């Protein structure tokens, strides 16, 4: 990266100092507080320091490109805001995240320099157009390949990423070299490794970290610079492993259905009180690439190839080599889960459709499951909590 307006390696990128100089418990509390803060203070601080912000909608976005250009990639994942402006742009029959993501921007809780959406569903396809009419900065649609099985898909995606990078660099006013992108790939590879380590803790010793703390640690990667996130995880993970929390006799559960809209943190907390959430697809876009991205050769090609060849699954990517039901069953087996919570965001067509295939596969495999819906701005969890507990008790005392 040359001529950057903002140096991401500079000390001034310390946008989330609240976790520092605290013990683990208080630091995790600071992480949860930041996650629930609808004013997005870390993004505001980045901008105050002169940095540019690239907002990207769910599910996956090659954040390395924004990072290489010196911008802060921010995961736009909705929030618990009342939709006052956005309701006039979207019908009531659409999911919440579309509206609250737009609301976050229209209400000026967050200010971006560029926004990228993806055609993962009709609502998301329309989001970029509506966004563009209401903001005076670039709004782009990133067209991820509809058919990842095509032999041309990697080359196609490489070109698409290059097209996107041109707009990003126009916004940041920087020139990005291959070495810059490779450097970003290295930063993100470390982050991916740390996230995998976190999920290993969830799978092997889930009593050492609560479901909501694990969630918060992952989610923060979407709103703070990745170097800071790496630093946070490098510090927190060894301390979590050293904890002496008592293991409880709980059912091990996989949560499936949060690939786009996210359940509120209180719902994650409620689930974590009744079972061990040993694996999940929470914010799967932030953990989409499952292995290291190669750091030799053409870095944009490497990113594109990794999206296709080294990636997780979601209801909005259709790859004949990655049968979603099979991948769910693998997730269950790998984590030694005893049950699955098959959830979907209200009004989410892809999520609700996939529930059918998932439940058929689970039935066939004899794995008990609980089907549910959620909404990011729901506030009452008593009903669903009682249902989940009853479901788990039926397994526990069968």
């Amino acid at each position: 990266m040359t001529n950057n307006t903002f140096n991401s390696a500079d000390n001034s990128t310390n946008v989330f100092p609240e976790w520092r100089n605290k013990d683990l418990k208080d630091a995790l509390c600071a992480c949860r507080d930041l996650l629930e803060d609808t004013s997005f203070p870390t993004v505001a601080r980045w901008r105050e320091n002169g940095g540019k912000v690239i907002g990207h909608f769910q599910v996956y976005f090659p954040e390395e490109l924004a990072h290489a250009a010196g911008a802060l990639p921010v995961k736009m994942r909705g929030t618990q805001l009342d939709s006052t402006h956005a309701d006039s742009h979207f019908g009531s029959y659409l999911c919440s995240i579309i509206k609250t993501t737009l609301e976050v921007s229209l209400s000026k809780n967050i200010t971006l320099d560029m926004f990228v959406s993806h055609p993962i569903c009709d609502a998301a396809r329309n989001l970029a157009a509506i966004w563009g009419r209401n903001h005076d900065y670039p709004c782009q649609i990133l067209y991820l390949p509809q058919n990842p099985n095509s032999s041309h898909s990697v080359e196609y995606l490489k070109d698409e990423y290059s097209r996107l990078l041109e707009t990003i660099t126009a916004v940041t006013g920087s020139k990005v070299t291959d070495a810059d992108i490779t450097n970003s790939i290295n930063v993100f590879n470390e982050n991916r490794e740390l996230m995998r380590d976190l999920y290993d803790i969830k799978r092997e010793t889930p009593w050492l970290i609560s479901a909501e703390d694990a969630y918060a640690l992952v989610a923060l990667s979407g709103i703070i610079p990745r170097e800071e996130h790496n630093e946070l995880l490098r510090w927190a993970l060894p301390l979590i492993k050293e904890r002496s929390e008592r293991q409880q006799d709980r059912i091990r559960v996989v949560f499936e259905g949060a690939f786009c809209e996210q359940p509120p943190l209180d719902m994650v907390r409620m689930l974590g009180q009744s079972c061990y959430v040993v694996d999940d697809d929470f914010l799967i876009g932030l953990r989409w690439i499952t292995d290291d991205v190669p750091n030799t050769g053409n870095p944009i090609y490497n990113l594109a190839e990794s999206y296709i060849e080294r990636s997780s699954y979601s209801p909005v990517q259709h790859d004949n080599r990655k049968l979603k039901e099979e991948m769910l069953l693998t997730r269950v087996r790998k984590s030694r889960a005893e049950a699955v919570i098959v959830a979907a965001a209200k009004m989410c067509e892809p999520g609700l459709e996939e529930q059918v295939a998932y439940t058929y596969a689970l039935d066939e495999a004899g794995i008990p499951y609980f089907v549910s819906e959620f909404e990011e701005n729901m506030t009452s969890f008593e009903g669903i909590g009682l249902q989940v507990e009853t479901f788990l008790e039926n397994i526990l005392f069968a």
Partner: protein
Amino acid sequence: MSITAGIDVGSTYTKVVIVNDQGEILARELRPTGFKLLQVATATLESCIKKAGLNREDINYIIATGIGRHQVTFKDVHVTDLTASARGAGYLFPNTRSVLDVGGQTMKASRVDENSKVSSFRMNDKCAAGTGAFLEKTARYMGFETEEIGPLLSTSREPVPISGVCAVFAESEVINHLSLGTPPADIMLGAITSLVERCLQLLRRIKAEPEFTLIGGILRFEAMAKSIGDQVDVKVNVPADDIVQFVTAFGAAILGQRRLKKLAEEQALEASAG
């Protein structure tokens, strides 16, 4: 011999029951819940262990239940009070098909199957009018303590109507009745009758079937059980003495025994496979 403890952290009282693998109650203990749930759960358990002549390490498995179950950090697992009370009622009265639990601040009706699994349930709305708090308030308006409700009821000749729509508004009804010279015992029985009507509404909503087992602190008052029995027109089961208040904690302890057995079976299976 495996020993398990059930801890029911209720909204008004915290109850602990310790049982052996024969399902025999070794000790039971009860304390007001107050505001420090973990502290009271710990203290009640320790006191109960002492009563049973045991040590903490003698307890092989702990199940927490009740509204404060999540706060009990030293448990092995927690279960809903619906599951625990169904198992407790089913253990004491194996033909139980409907359970009515009237506590200090909640009322729950469950329909259960032949294995004491909950198949349907309803709970009262977030309102004290359908709970023991309603009786306590009514007694307090007339200058009586909760412990005096039982003896007071035994002197009643005829209940007077109390709407029971709201525990707060009931105060004005009580004052009206007192100003008309109505004996406090009849007012108290009127409050019981009102509470019973709420119980019946819940039982109707779950399509309750006999046998009925009635549990919870409010069932300590004989008039309550008798009134419900008269209304449903079949014999109702009421655990003897103060056990009626411990059924949920007892059910949790029994579930603990069941879980220990299952874990032992799984371990044996793993050992034989490996």
